[in-house]
């Protein structure tokens, strides 16, 4: 089994721009392992102080919803308007709730 034909796996990169915020997905890269992925992510995705923390995840570890099921998964929410605070009209004096 030759290493030559084995491509480095793909990693997804998530960067937290500053303390208190979430890590946001910002791109992907190929690296041979987690440490290299972190270093490369630092080199590519934080060149202009975009981040204070990096997560890298192997792309094949990500479970994603199927776009074909988008309707089935997310349409039911449209009729459940009572989940929103704005559904409830209250007297002005207590409306700050």
């Amino acid at each position: 089994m030759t290493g030559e034909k084995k491509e480095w796996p793909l990693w997804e990169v998530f960067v937290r721009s500053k303390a208190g915020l979430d890590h946001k997905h910002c791109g992907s890269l190929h690296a041979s392992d987690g440490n290299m992925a972190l270093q490369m992510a630092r080199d590519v995705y934080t060149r202009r102080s975009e981040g204070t923390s990096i997560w890298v995840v192997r792309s094949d570890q990500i479970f994603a919803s199927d776009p074909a099921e988008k309707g089935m998964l997310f349409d039911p929410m449209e009729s459940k308007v009572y989940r929103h605070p704005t559904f409830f009209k209250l007297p002005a004096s207590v409306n700050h709730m």
Partner: protein
Amino acid sequence: MYTQAMDLGPQPTEGGGKEISADEKRLQLQFDARIDAGDFIEAKDWMPENFRKTLIRQISQHAHSEIVGMLPEGNWVTRAPTLKRKAILLAKIQDEGGHGLYLYAAAETLGISRDQMLDALHSGRAKYSSIFNYPTLTWADMGVIGWLVDGAAIMNQVPLCRCSYAPYARAMVRICREESFHQRQGFDALLTMMTQGTAQQRAMVQDAVNRWWWPSLMMFGPPDVDSPNSAQSMRWGIKRISNDDLRQKFIDATVPQSEVLGVQLPDPDLKWNEARGHYDFGLIDWKEFWQVVGGDGPCNRERLAARVSAWEDGAWVRQAAMAYADKHTEPQRAS
């Protein structure tokens, strides 16, 4: 800019005259409706096979252009006149490596591997922007490349931020944010030479402008009338503005900039046309363009040879890294 020439040559057209199933017809109609509505297509969405093929070719060639584009500038890293300019040039070149990465990543979402794309480049089947087949002869070339070549690139890339294929559009947003520094640093270097330099330095700048102006205009691709594939790309929402329109926008924006620098653009026919509200300009030598695109420019062979040796000489590093990773992988623990 690096998308110039990407839609040259035979391109898959929609339909292709094959029998398609009722299911596929429905999906095609849905797809067309989404494009017409200005929706973004994501990686796992259904798309016509030819849409996929066109994007793979355009995005991968765009990526190749970024990487090959590092070479003419790499020439001047050891020759930069000051530490400041050297650091700036290094940063620009590093950015371009990163841009290549964003674009390869976007192309890979369409089902092609990095190895396959690089193989196409190294074997000469894939193209890259022909502007990089010109030599960088003086330090002033670095400034002019930033000003004109990156300027043209920005003109081309801004509309791509709204391209219908979302991974490509997102890569372009990232690239455009960083590209502006590339143009500004070039203009800044030229301004320094023109306003604070010697007569010899000013002449060097003018010479560089003379050599890079026309190739920069060619970056927008052949005239619309000679670009049969533009229509399909526009129908699919990949291309938003025509070659000629982009070229005109670039010229209109650049002429005033040349006046600030105090350089002459090497076109005796360049003149403001009040009636049109645009600059008139001279005839482009498209023979030169086709020659360079076809592989016969000043540096084509040298550029490709450099890329091929970098790939081949680096093979042991890639193998060693994988061997190390395999040896040190933690066995999966039962949860």
